[in-house]
């Protein structure tokens, strides 16, 4: 059984998170991963590529776009989970559909939605499996990507 205080978050969408895709942020991301692909930091190389400029690696906006505190959506549900005693939270997985490349200087607008919450019996008792769906648009209103993320509370 999913407690009502968690269930009430299903279907809620965060206010849109609007972010400029900054060159420095792309470079730091690639550096943290240990990814030396020049498309992510070498403007001269990238300008001669099909993209014409530096791009963000796919998945760049996965979590960094979702870190805005909000009483709705993801943060709201996570707070409710902790309050309901499911305070041990683990990331379950991530899926994407990609439609367009993301270039440095683009504006990306992310709208994370709580898709579903399901109770599942695990080895250590009942777990709450939370599914999120995030839509990413760019400054032209074009669909850039969709992301599906699962967080598990125990």
């Amino acid at each position, binding site marked *: 059984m999913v407690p009502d205080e968690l269930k009430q978050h299903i279907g809620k969408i965060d206010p849109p998170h609007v972010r400029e895709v900054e060159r420095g*942020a792309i470079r730091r991301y690639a550096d943290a991963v240990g990814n030396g692909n020049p498309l992510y930091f070498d403007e001269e190389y990238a300008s001669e590529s099909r993209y014409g400029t530096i791009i963000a690696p796919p998945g760049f906006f996965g979590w960094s776009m979702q870190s805005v505190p909000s009483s709705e959506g993801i943060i709201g549900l996570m707070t409710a989970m902790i309050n309901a005693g499911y305070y041990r939270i683990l990331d379950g997985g991530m899926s994407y559909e990609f439609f367009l490349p993301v270039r440095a200087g683009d504006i990306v607008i992310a709208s994370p939605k709580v898709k579903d919450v399901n109770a599942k019996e695990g080895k250590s008792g009942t777990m709450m499996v939370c599914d999120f769906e995030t839509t990413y648009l760019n400054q032209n209103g074009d669909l850039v990507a969709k992301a599906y993320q699962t967080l598990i509370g125990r």
Partner: protein
Amino acid sequence: MVKEQICWEDVEVGYELPTLEKIAHSLMLVKWAGASGDFNPHHYEEAFGQSQGTDGTIVHGLLKHAWLIQLVTNWMGDEGFMKKFSCQYRGIDYPRKMKTMNEPQDGDTWQCKGKITNKYVDGDDHCVDLEIGVVNGKGEVTTPGSATVILPSGEWQLDN
């Protein structure tokens, strides 16, 4: 400069991507926290990690996801396009601690592996499906996944 670019015709089902080796260590996790915006202390504070039911700090799932994306995107080259990606965090990975300010202690090395499971044409797109995964030091796949990539076909020519 002639860029190396893999084409759809170059690969068959069963083709294995060059393995990408990674070492997760405390410094990398802190850098990842800053770069990704995931400041969950589970990834940098031992006692908090234990309170969460693990043996201390653990490697971010999303860092492993970024390794797998690197494996695929750097293999497919500038002309490839990743259409779909998915991975599941099935096993917990523990980072190496630091020996010096920037050198990790001896310990596990992770291998990111990929294999083509399907090859087909979808409309105008020449696609391959991949089975991918992060393998830990014991040979266990802690982060299995899949991806679909569009590759240039043989008619594609380098402009430069």
